[in-house]
């Protein structure tokens, strides 16, 4: 359970961006959370709410884009979502595939509103 630290790191970045855009009101921060990031989206939302309540960021919304694990086939270059831990290429059948997505833990964007 380290989602509070993750939420705090997101708010640190938001505060740094706020310093660059003085006077601009931030309404939403968008993050990407990968299936293999070790972060649970629900616990992250909970931690974010706990940290922003009665703070200057009380009205800042958190939008989480959940990114499933994807594999890329090294034989035919096909990229596919890996459901139920299935990592063999569904197109050519080979097991020679590598992780292509699912480790994301990124701050993608911040939305601003009228002050």
């Amino acid at each position, binding site marked *: *359970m*380290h989602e509070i*630290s*993750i939420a705090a*790191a*997101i708010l*640190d*970045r938001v505060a740094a*961006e706020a310093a660059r*855009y003085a006077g601009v009101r931030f*309404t939403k*921060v968008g*993050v990407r959370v990968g*299936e*293999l*990031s*070790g*972060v649970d989206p629900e616990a992250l939302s909970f931690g974010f709410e706990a940290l922003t309540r009665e703070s200057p960021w009380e009205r800042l919304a958190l939008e989480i884009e959940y990114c499933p*694990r994807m594999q890329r086939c090294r034989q035919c270059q096909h990229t596919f979502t890996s459901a139920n*831990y299935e*990592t063999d290429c569904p197109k050519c059948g080979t*097991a020679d*595939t590598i*992780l292509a997505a699912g480790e994301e*833990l*990124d*701050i*993608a*964007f*911040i*939305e*601003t*509103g009228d002050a």
Partner: protein
Amino acid sequence: MTRLLVEQKVLSENQRIAAELREQFRQNSVFCLNLVSSPGSGKTSLLERTLEAFPDHTRVAVLTGDVQTENDARRLSRFGFPVRQITTGGTCHLDARMVEKHLADWSLADLDMLLIENVGNLVCPSSYDLGEHAKVVLLSVTEGEDKPLKYPSIFVKSELMVLNKLDLLPYVPFSVERARENARRVHPGIEIIEISCITGEGLDHWLDWLRSNWRRNFATSSAYAHKETE
């Protein structure tokens, strides 16, 4: 409404420090491993058996993380190698800054290997890069063989899975074959070594793995030639 593109890693600060540590390890030819498991899988026992097997002149050091107590550092310091405890005081994982801080007055030039024992936890340590060359995940036969499926992140990110407590197999309903299958299902390329820290079974395979990866690291390091001629 305007959208500002940020495109930053949430843990960019941790990543920055980890990259600095990795560069320092490279410059000093220090091979660094990050050991991760549930509490009680045998990380400290494995380190005891490992340090015990090393000749006295081995230039190895250990950082061991726990939420509280200095017990592990006490257990490990009797082998005569430098050992330092990182007490996180509640945090469920080690991060790169803690490693940087606790390495501060150690000279990396005097080391060939750094073994980091993470806080017992299969979830959170998977998010934090410590600058290590590889993560090693331990699983013991008293845990379920479905651990790799329940906690895929750490098994995907680890190069090696060490299956410990083989000596207890007669007493527990644990299928080694299923554990192997599950680990390979989430990470097809993961290496697997089976050991018992009590009977010593399989420890030679672990020590071989350690030596060959250590050597491989040296071979790819720019300081290799320098160390060889010392």
